[in-house]
């Protein structure tokens, strides 16, 4: 029942918030905040009550009939991996509500409606174990995101929103084709229609068919992830989205891609994935290097941060397809930490843009002297982004590299160079925006307590993940072990 | 002995002439006439086919086509009148405003 609440609360609260905004904007914000907080608490309760050495696959489950005609069920379930990502979802949800408390002044109700529905969609993605339901949620989260960008975005918002929408929809449809192909393959083998994840695992199929279906899933997730070549929607979308949109995009939507790889691509198509792994790993490494290089070249702060996402998610892709315990856990760790660190960077850049009305680094400089707390926080998250040990990102990336080394020395070495590249852009970011002379004589207010609180929470979270990540690692370890054991030849 | 194959050929030829008329003429009246030729040709094909099987069905279909042609022409001519009233021309190219 908790699982259903996780989805339904934001949905209902979304409608409520929209309706209420007509009379009171503040009430609308509070409803949103309360709903997301409630979900966060529910997720934490689930986490607190789960036993890591649980017997079954799932920690909690909920199952209803939906379209029996086609063997489609409303089946939700949660394991360590999805639980953590759910917590991340609502954690960032709360923070993005807080971050946009003052930023959004137009159509406030509709904004919060969209925000909540995105969160519901993402929660649905993480919870669904029926492939149809998964696809449903997968598509569902796009629409409110589209609105978020298209209505409250910046200058070039329409272009960015449309690009985002088309990329993700188109790739999603390819996944739909693959899902259906899988279902029919399963049907021809067993005579029953089923979209159940559990049923479809281990479906017997020819290797050619498996490869095509795998690619169908892979493309959809690779677009979201984003893997290089399919990434170009991301810088635009991130740059133009309002703060909350950027945070959710970078922190959560990208994770759904990685989650999909872990949940579906590897387990459902182990052989094809193994065959394809070298390509995926090369894509990952190329993404790491290319993203870092482009981040280094940007002058628009949000664009810069966006390209760092490409780079970091390259680690995730690499880690997933390296497919050993170290790399898998590293990938998940990177997902979580990247969510926090990049989310924080977007909040900061948003706060900065709010104050000086530009994202161009050429128009900045010397911000530190007028807003030291803001700048200090930016420095902290820039350091997290460049993989400083002691902060969460390092743990993930190091594990990925360590695991990757066992697969291929060259790939690990190249990826390690990617970490070096991260230094370039992270320091460039701090240097050009916050340090140097205050050429334009900016006089801006520093972080207000609300923003300070958000930053503090995120800093603590990253430090905790960097220095004592065991509880988190242990939560998803059983899942990763299972996935790891699905690798052919093991 | 009825010339069935030849019947089909002649109806086909008439049909084709009707098509040419529709494609080539710009005057709406002539277009409508060409359509009549086409419909007539189609009806003739039915009659030929009915003759082949010695069934009345082909002729019945011809009757239906006749009814349809009548309805068609009456509506078409009403439109021609209205068109001429508004545009002072029956040139189909000249009345075209919508495109793209």
């Amino acid at each position: 029942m908790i699982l259903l609440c996780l989805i339904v609360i934001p949905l209902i609260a979304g409608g409520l918030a929209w309706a209420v905004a007509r009379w009171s904007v503040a009430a609308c914000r509070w409803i949103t905040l309360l709903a997301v907080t409630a979900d966060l608490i529910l997720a934490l309760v689930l986490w607190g009550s789960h036993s890591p050495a649980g017997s079954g696959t799932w920690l909690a489950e909920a199952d209803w009939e939906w379209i029996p005609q086609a063997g489609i069920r409303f089946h939700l379930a949660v394991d360590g991996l999805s639980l953590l990502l759910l917590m991340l979802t609502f954690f960032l949800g709360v923070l993005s509500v807080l971050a946009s408390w003052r930023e959004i002044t137009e159509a406030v109700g509709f904004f919060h409606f969209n925000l909540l529905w995105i969160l519901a969609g993402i929660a649905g993605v993480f919870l669904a174990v029926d492939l149809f339901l998964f696809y449903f949620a997968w598509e569902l989260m796009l629409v409110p995101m589209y609105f978020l960008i298209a209505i409250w975005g910046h200058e070039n918002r329409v272009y960015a929103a449309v690009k985002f929408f088309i990329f993700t929809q188109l790739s999603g449809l390819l996944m739909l084709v693959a899902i259906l192909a899988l279902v029919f393959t399963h049907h021809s083998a067993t005579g029953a229609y089923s979209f159940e994840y559990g049923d479809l695992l281990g479906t017997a199929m020819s290797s050619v068919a498996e490869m095509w279906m795998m690619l169908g899933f892979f493309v959809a997730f690779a677009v979201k992830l984003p893997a290089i070549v399919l990434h170009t929607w991301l810088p635009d979308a991130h740059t133009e989205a309002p703060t909350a949109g950027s945070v959710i995009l970078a922190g959560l939507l990208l994770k759904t891609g990685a989650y999909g790889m872990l949940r579906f691509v590897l387990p459902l198509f182990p052989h094809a994935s193994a065959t394809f792994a070298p390509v995926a790993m090369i894509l990952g490494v190329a993404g790491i290097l290319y993203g870092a290089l482009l981040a280094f070249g940007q002058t628009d702060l949000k664009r810069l941060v966006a390209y760092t996402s490409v780079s970091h998610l390259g680690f995730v892709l690499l880690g997933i397809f390296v497919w050993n315990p170290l790399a898998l856990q590293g990938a998940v760790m990177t997902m979580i930490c990247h969510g926090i660190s990049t989310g924080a960077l977007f909040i900061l850049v948003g706060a900065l843009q709010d104050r000086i009305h530009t994202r161009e680094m050429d128009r900045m400089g010397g911000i530190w002297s007028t807003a030291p707390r803001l700048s200090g926080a930016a420095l902290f998250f820039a350091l997290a982004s460049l993989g400083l040990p002691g902060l969460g990102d390092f743990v993930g990336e190091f594990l990925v590299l360590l695991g990757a080394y066992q697969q291929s020395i060259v790939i690990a070495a190249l990826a390690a160079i990617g970490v070096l590249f991260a230094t370039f852009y992270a320091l460039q970011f701090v240097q050009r925006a916050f340090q140097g002379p205050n050429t334009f004589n900016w006089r801006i207010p520093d972080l207000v307590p609300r923003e300070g609180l958000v930053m503090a929470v995120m800093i603590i979270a990253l430090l905790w993940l960097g220095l004592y990540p065991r509880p988190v690692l242990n939560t998803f370890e059983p899942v990763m072990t299972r996935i790891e054991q699905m690798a052919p030849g093991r | 002995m009825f010339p069935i194959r030849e019947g089909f050929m002649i109806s086909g030829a008439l049909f084709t002439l009707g098509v040419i008329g529709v494609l080539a003429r710009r005057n709406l009246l002539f277009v409508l006439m060409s359509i009549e030729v086409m419909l007539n040709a189609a009806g003739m094909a039915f009659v030929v086919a009915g003759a082949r099987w010695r069934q009345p069905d082909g002729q019945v279909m011809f009757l239906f086509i006749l009814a349809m042609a009548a309805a068609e022409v009456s509506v078409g001519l009403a439109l021609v009148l209205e068109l001429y009233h508004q545009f002072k021309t029956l040139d189909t190219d000249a009345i075209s405003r919508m495109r793209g």
Partner: protein
Amino acid sequence: MLALLWLVPAIPFASALALAVLGPRMRARGVAVVGTGSIAISAAISLVIAGTFLGAPPASGAYTQTLWTWIDVGSFRPGIAFYLDALSLVMTVVVTFVSFLIHLYSVEFMRGDEGYSRFFAYMNLFVASMVTLLLADNLLLLYLGWEGVGLCSYLLIGFWYQDAANGLAGRKAFIVTRVGDTAMAVGLFVLFHNLGTLRIQDLMHAAQSQWPAGSSYAIAAAALLLGGAVGKSAQLPLQTWLPDAMAGPTPTSALIHAATMVTAGVYLIARTNVLFTLAPPVQFAVAVVGAATLLMAGFSALTQNDIKRVLAYSTISQIGYMFLALGVGAWGAAIFHFMTHAFFKALLFLAAGIVIEALHHEHNIFRMGGLRTELPVAFWTFLIGGCALAGLPLITAGYFSKDLILWSVANSPAGGMGLLAAGIAGVVLTSFYTFRLIFVVFFGRIETAVSHRPGLAMVVPACILAFLSVVGGFDKASFEALLNTALPHFREAGGGMSEALTSVAAGLAFFAGLLAAWYAYLRNPSLSRAAAGNPAGRLLHRFWFSDWGMDWFYDRLFIRPVVWAASASKADIVDSIYDGLASAAVLCYRILSATETGKLRWYAAWIAGGSVVTLAIVMWL
């Protein structure tokens, strides 16, 4: 008492955190108390621990303290754990103690700076990182400290952020050392992949038992670790960041050069000596790197005008000595030189800081002069430090440690005449540039008026360090004995030189350099000007002055291509694929749209044409 070990890094770390959060709202005095006091406590604890350790050494010769398991993935389970043996003990004590003195000095030096609390926060974090590095039980934690000091150096070098050049220098320091760190990280992968652990002691045992000498794994691992070491310790070819690092406040320079950061590489190699022993080519490379660096840096130091840059090159050069020692297997000698170097180099920077502050932040030595009488404290302490650096025989600590290195080189199986010659030439150079500095700055005419005289907080640390610079090298024997509990003994090759011979050679070299400096800069200054004036001299001067053109070289080879690539691809080349697709779609739209002519005949033709095509397909298929 050993259980207090974790406090040594924890207290500076906590105070760094506190200063970062609360610092801006604290008064300067409070900041000073927290910032310096924490290091004082830390130093005190380390002294207490040292006492305990020396009084009752643990049975295994080492003490391990595990706080918690850091990461827990399968067999990869590095902990937050500390390992204390003689090596780390010596390093920790020296580092905390010297750091304390530097902090004390900073209390006055930095007074009035708007980033006062920020400064102390960074400094404390620096010490915390360095101590973590030293005490780390596993290479991952060491790596944490390792990166931490890199970070802090970046922060402190760029401390005065409003000057973009400082930021640039800071970034350079971070990035160049990170190049080495990347190699080191890969080294960790090699080690973990092949030996299945990152705990240093386990690693060493495993390596010893699993890898034969000269095994390619050992060579790879050692070479990669060496990569990290040369980066942090500013050795060839990654030394270019250190001279630029002088952009930071002077106490920072003292901290970087004397106690933290640059010695990390030496420590790493000493710590993982087993690997280097198993990889003779790499160990030889260490020696060669050291020798080459000490000479190159020596020549560069000769030509510098900036007082701190001279000292910076001298550091590079002295670390070169340590590498030389490591390379020949004289582990103890290297650490010994580290200790004495920590004292006198800190001293030199502090004294230089007094001079610089006295002259309105003037760095150019040729605008100084005659300060001997104006700033006696600075003069005497600087002189003592200089003598120790140059190795004034029999009195100074630097002489003993350097002499030990020279002797080791001469007597090691890995050593040789070439290395020894380099070492002795280095002594001449050191002596020459040191006294050039002293003569130019403290003798001759007064060039700039002194405006500010040091207070007690600056003088006291300098004096303490001056004292240590002299006496620090006296008890060589017991020091070696202590270190030998943690490090392998120096293996002496038969038929080498006697200690007396190397001592005399070193002494003579010292005086040669001293005399040359005296002649060229005091007795006959026109000589030095003439030497620098003729075309060959000018070329050489420029060459040495620019650090043998390394910066230019790196700029052309790496920096410009990367910057060019980044700016060229700013608009994301991949996106043009999709732009192309979009244009193609629009083109299709234009073409198809042109078919919608609005002409009735044309439409009818389409229908007829469509049925023609349909018929055609039906017929011929």
